[in-house]
């Protein structure tokens, strides 16, 4: 039976987090981090299944949640029983969520204002008519060549900004793209793909994160094996059907 999956679309990771906190009716100062992070990651995989492209910031937040979860698992006491005054690892995130929620609410207020205001019409100044009625001595007024140049500069900057936005949009890499890319590279390197080489030449932080998450995902699905021949040595990546001396290797998958 085919059923349609409907999932809401979020503005960004903060928006998704807020939604999950609302849905679970949890106290923002005591976020059940394990629950929220698993629901968060569940959303990401649902989005992936229906080919909803998410920006790398969603993945970055997944990393943050998992890192907080890991820190929460660390023992709060030293073996001698001495108390450690450590900050709640969730605090920084909580502050950010509160601040984001504030502006999201104001954006809602702005939306209402925009709607109300769109029903009001004012008169446009009839500049052409007024020019006829009160012709200025100098049609350029006090405009000098420097003003013209400044205006042209502003136009050129606008073009530049539009171009930047377009190129950023083009360079955005999805998790699925990266997974495909790695699978292709694995096929090209049956003798093992260097973990180190996989990351060299990546300049964007987002791409590094996506690459790392792609490896985790492939490993979770049991498609690859990671092998490290010596401690702190390079890690080699293989397809799962690879059969060579695994027993002796220090696997990290």
């Amino acid at each position, binding site marked *: 039976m085919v059923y349609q999956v409907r999932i809401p679309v979020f503005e960004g990771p903060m928006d998704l987090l807020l939604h999950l906190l609302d849905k679970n009716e949890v106290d923002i100062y005591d976020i059940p981090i394990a629950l929220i992070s698993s629901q968060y990651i569940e959303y990401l995989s649902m989005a992936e299944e229906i080919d909803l492209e998410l920006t790398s910031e969603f993945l970055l937040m997944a990393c943050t949640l998992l890192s907080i979860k890991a820190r929460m698992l660390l023992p709060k006491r030293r073996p001698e029983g001495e108390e450690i005054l450590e900050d709640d690892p969730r605090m920084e995130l909580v502050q950010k969520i509160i601040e984001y929620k504030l502006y999201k609410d104001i954006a809602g207020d702005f939306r209402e204002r925009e709607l109300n205001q769109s029903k009001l019409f004012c*008169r446009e100044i009839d500049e052409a008519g007024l020019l006829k*009625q009160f012709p*200025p001595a100098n049609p350029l007024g006090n405009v000098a*060549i420097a003003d013209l140049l400044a205006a042209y500069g502003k136009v050129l900057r606008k073009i*530049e900004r539009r171009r930047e936005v377009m190129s950023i949009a083009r360079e955005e890499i999805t998790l699925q793209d990266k997974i495909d890319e790695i699978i292709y590279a694995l096929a090209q390197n049956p003798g093992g793909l260097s973990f180190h080489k996989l990351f060299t030449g990546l300049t964007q932080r987002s791409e590094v994160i996506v690459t790392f998450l792609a490896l985790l995902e492939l490993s979770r699905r049991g498609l690859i094996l990671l092998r490290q021949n010596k401690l702190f040595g390079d890690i080699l990546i293989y397809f799962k059907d690879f059969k060579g001396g695994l027993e002796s290797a220090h696997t990290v998958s």
Partner: protein
Amino acid sequence: MPTLFPKDFKSVIEALLFVSGEPLSAQQISGILDVDEQDVVVLLKEIKADCERENRGFFLLEIAGGFIFSTRAEHAEYIEKLIKPRLNTLSQAALETLAIISYHQPVTRSEIEEIRGVKCDSSLNTIMERGLIDEAGRKEAPGRPILYKTTSEFLKYMGLKSLDDLPKIKKDELQEAVNES
């Protein structure tokens, strides 16, 4: 489906006259309100009388088969005081449009809009009305769009002998300008 009382129709007609930059005919108004044209004519007369009786800042002028609100001649000196400083300068939009035309002429409206990223009918009108630009024939392209160029008035008041005197923008200077400001 309008559910307004006749009294409110007068208010709507005032609103239409208020926002319209062009004269409105009784026929146009009757079409918008879905009201008999004769009723509109009566209401227009009432509006005209109201403006006079209350000595409002504007009156209803009937021209070329249409009605338009217009300010009174005796207020011209004050209106000039308000408007003069504004006419003495160009809006940012008009300035940008003029800058694009001066560096890209002859250029069509859609080419300018392509560069600015926004519509520019109104700023084209303004600088045309000021005599700073003029039409320069039509482009041999689909739709044969009008081309625009700057005028000799533009050069004169900019203090330029010819277009060659416009400050040169070199590729890298341009890039710097983009990076800096």
